[in-house]
């Protein structure tokens, strides 16, 4: 197939990336990596984070609600123990970053400037932490400042991952203005599942999977008409047709997340379906 796009200097020969948090940190084998352009890691923070207590998951209609709480070993252990293993998997690596403050993000960006990674994705949209995460997305001004500061310290691919519940347009403009290279649209949607009625117990988490596809597709469609930054779509990609739909709606590439949780052999299937449809539509010619 002759799929080829560039985001800055970053070349993609497949529109597929693996979404943050949905393939582990390389501990477990992943099938079909030859079909993807990059791996985006689980969120990495300055200090190790234990994650949230169980339950962390609930099933929803055509969707999954998760509240992992950014369990991760922290940047130093990540760099020492995890990154070398992830690099061995083959694809380029983009590190998803979680910070509670602009300083945190700047610190992390500096640590990765000289590390063997192709880029970073700033997670300003995690719905499952008390500080940082989605709370950044409440103010376009804060986001501008954040991206602006990170940009000064990081010369490689800089992606910002938006929250769908924010004022996406203002936030997107702020990212553009501040010098980001691309946007990931979008993270999970803040959601609630009633885990038990008696005693009453709820899970607050983020909704992913097919249920959110029509919503994120709409965001991608609208945003791509308003901002110049390339958009990497993330939300409910399950089939090759979903990939094609996102590209047709203005995305430059797409991330596969929940689909891989369901079918560990899913990457190849999605890629092959995409390839077939791509050729059928004569997009390559």
């Amino acid at each position: 197939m002759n799929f080829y796009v560039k985001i800055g200097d970053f070349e993609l020969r497949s529109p597929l990336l693996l979404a943050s948090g949905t393939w582990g940190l390389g501990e477990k084998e992943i099938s079909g990596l030859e079909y993807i352009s990059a791996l985006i890691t689980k969120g990495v923070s300055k200090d190790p984070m234990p994650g949230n207590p169980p339950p962390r998951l609930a099933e929803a209609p055509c969707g999954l609600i998760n509240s992992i709480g950014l369990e991760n070993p922290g940047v130093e252990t990540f760099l020492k123990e995890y990154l070398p293993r992830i690099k061995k998997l083959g694809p380029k690596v983009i590190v998803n970053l979680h910070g509670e403050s602009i300083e945190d993000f700047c610190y992390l960006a500096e640590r990765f400037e000289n590390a063997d990674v192709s880029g970073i994705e700033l997670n300003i949209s995690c719905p499952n932490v008390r500080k940082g995460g989605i709370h950044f997305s409440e103010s376009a001004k804060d986001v501008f400042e954040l991206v602006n500061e990170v940009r000064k310290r990081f010369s490689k691919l800089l992606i910002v991952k938006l929250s769908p519940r924010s004022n996406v347009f203002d936030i997107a403009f702020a990212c553009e203005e501040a010098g980001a290279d691309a946007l990931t649209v979008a993270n999970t949607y803040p959601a609630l599942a009633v885990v038990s009625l008696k005693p009453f117990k709820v899970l607050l988490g983020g909704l992913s999977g097919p249920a959110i596809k029509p919503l994120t597709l709409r965001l991608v469609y609208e945003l791509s008409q308003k901002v110049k930054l390339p958009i990497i779509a993330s939300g409910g990609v399950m089939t090759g047709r979903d990939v094609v739909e996102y590209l047709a709606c203005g995305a430059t590439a797409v991330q596969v997340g929940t689909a891989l949780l369901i079918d560990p052999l899913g990457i190849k299937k999605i890629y092959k379906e995409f390839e077939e449809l791509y050729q059928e539509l004569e997009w390559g010619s």
Partner: protein
Amino acid sequence: MYKARVLENGELTSSIYSLVLSAEDSLLANFLPGQFVKIKVSSGYDPLLPRPFTVHAIYDSAFEILYQVVGRGTKAMSRLKPGDEVEFFGPLGKPFPRIEGSYLVSAGGVGVAGFGYLCQGLKPEFSLPAKLLYGARTSAQLVKLDFFSTLLPVEVATDDGSLGLKGTVADLLLAELNKQSYQAILACGPKPMLKALAELGRTYGVKIFLVLETLLACGTGYCLGCAVPSRRGGYFKLCVDGPTFDAEEIDLEFLR
């Protein structure tokens, strides 16, 4: 996912079913006792997640699971008919620990499912348990009793006394530990049973391994969703560090 054909599917007793699926022998060769598979239960996206089930028994080019109908997914499974195609993935999870010396397996209800393959004795590196302690509400709920009885000694308990001891698996274990000493106990069943057994194990100073359950998203270690609190802080992942855990290593609050 891998494709499989339904060879048999039927009720063993009210709400507990047996499902036999075809699978290539080369794949089955990788299955070890205590591991599980995940099975897609719908043709659409709802329910979205495949459901996990421990492998109950292995046959030529086929394997069996026992499942209790508790919700939408298992309800859908109960409608499968021979010849239907289903998708599954596995083997997943860690096998049972290999125990040297005499040990017991104890099961409550459909928890017995996971012990069939072990008791079949098909993998020489896993020694046979000395006995199966097996409890259920009533005798009709003691499925696969004939199957197990031909493989090893079985002691049963029922809540209503309709077969064996009137009481619980914990009662059986207590009696057993008073008679004889064991290297370890392997236990699978409802949380209150596991808790009782874990406490007995501690009292008698015998190692006890618990087969745990939680909702899984991936079953492959990707999502970190299946957290089981460790006694020493932090979390295990049930799907890759378990489903079988040394009772001493986990925070027993999890069994509440």
